């Protein structure tokens, strides 16, 4: 299609929809890296898995400039107040990914000090399974958040998404051997 035609043509949409389109392709994550899942989150941001393909490469270390919180790691009762405070400082609309087993359910830490799932104190939109999840699984989680935004859903009130673990990597290694 020549540029001249594009300049002449037009399309109609709703403001809400175009806002959603802009939002979903520029989600700025707040890296709430509390423990080892944060290593996989760095890989998710790095060149190999490259989250910038989805417009989320701008990790903001200030909650005031971000609209997606990736909680990556074991949240203790003592830390839960900090997580909640940071969540409260983020501007609306804000989304939350619970990355990994500990964040989603307490994981292997069935103990007095660890919160058994962060949904006990903040609303979660997408849960990503794994210990830790592979970066591509986290990318899947991010894409699910994007789909939610595209559908015009409200954060924290819509259907929860659960990303399962998959074994793609192992399969690929097997095929290399063969």
């Amino acid at each position: 299609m020549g540029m001249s035609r594009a300049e002449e043509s037009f399309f109609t949409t709703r403001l809400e929809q175009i806002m959603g389109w802009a939002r979903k392709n520029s989600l700025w994550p707040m890296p709430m890296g509390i423990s080892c899942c944060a290593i996989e989150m760095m890989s998710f941001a790095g060149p190999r898995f490259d989250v910038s393909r989805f417009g989320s490469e701008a990790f903001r270390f200030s909650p005031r400039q971000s609209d997606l919180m990736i909680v990556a790691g074991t949240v203790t009762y003592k830390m839960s107040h900090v997580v909640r405070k940071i969540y409260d400082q983020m501007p609306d609309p804000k989304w939350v990914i619970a990355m990994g087993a500990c964040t989603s359910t307490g994981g292997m830490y069935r103990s007095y000090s660890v919160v058994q799932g962060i949904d006990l104190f903040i609303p979660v939109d997408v849960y990503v399974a794994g210990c830790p999840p592979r970066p591509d699984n986290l990318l899947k989680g991010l894409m699910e958040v994007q789909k939610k935004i595209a559908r015009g859903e409200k954060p924290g009130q819509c259907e929860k998404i659960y990303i399962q673990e998959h074994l793609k990597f192992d399969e690929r290694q097997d095929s290399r051997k063969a």
Partner: protein
Amino acid sequence: MMKDRILEKLNANLKSSLLAVNEYRGELTLTVVKGDIVKVCQFLRDDGDLRFDGLRDLCGADYYRPEGRFEVVYNLYSLKNKFRLRLKVRVGENDLHVHSVSHVWPTADWHEREAYDMYGIIFDGHPDLRRIYMPEEFEHFPLRKDFPLMGIPGSLNLPRK
């Protein structure tokens, strides 16, 4: 042998402070009278031959027995002699006080706070005996054997949803 030298010196100077001597797999463990722990530590550190200049670890332990339920364990190291020594002090449930060694080895400061936080052992003379892991308002001691694994409901609060 280093072990014999330590025992010889302690027997000559602080015989009444030693309760038991135990050796297992080349590791020497001395059980010390509770009230004399600072004296023994200071002697082991300052003796020109022994020079136990490092406190490598200090921890509490709960044996959950009627007599002398808790223990405080001191792991010492002598750089000069390349030798490790373990001291133990028995602490009864009714009298949880032990004298602090944080003025002998400053590293004991945080270790004693940890033992206080987890077992409730009180270190007299400690400069700043506060909880180190658990929130300040927490009222229990979670590494005691009678503390339930999943905690006491309502003892730790979550932020409002």
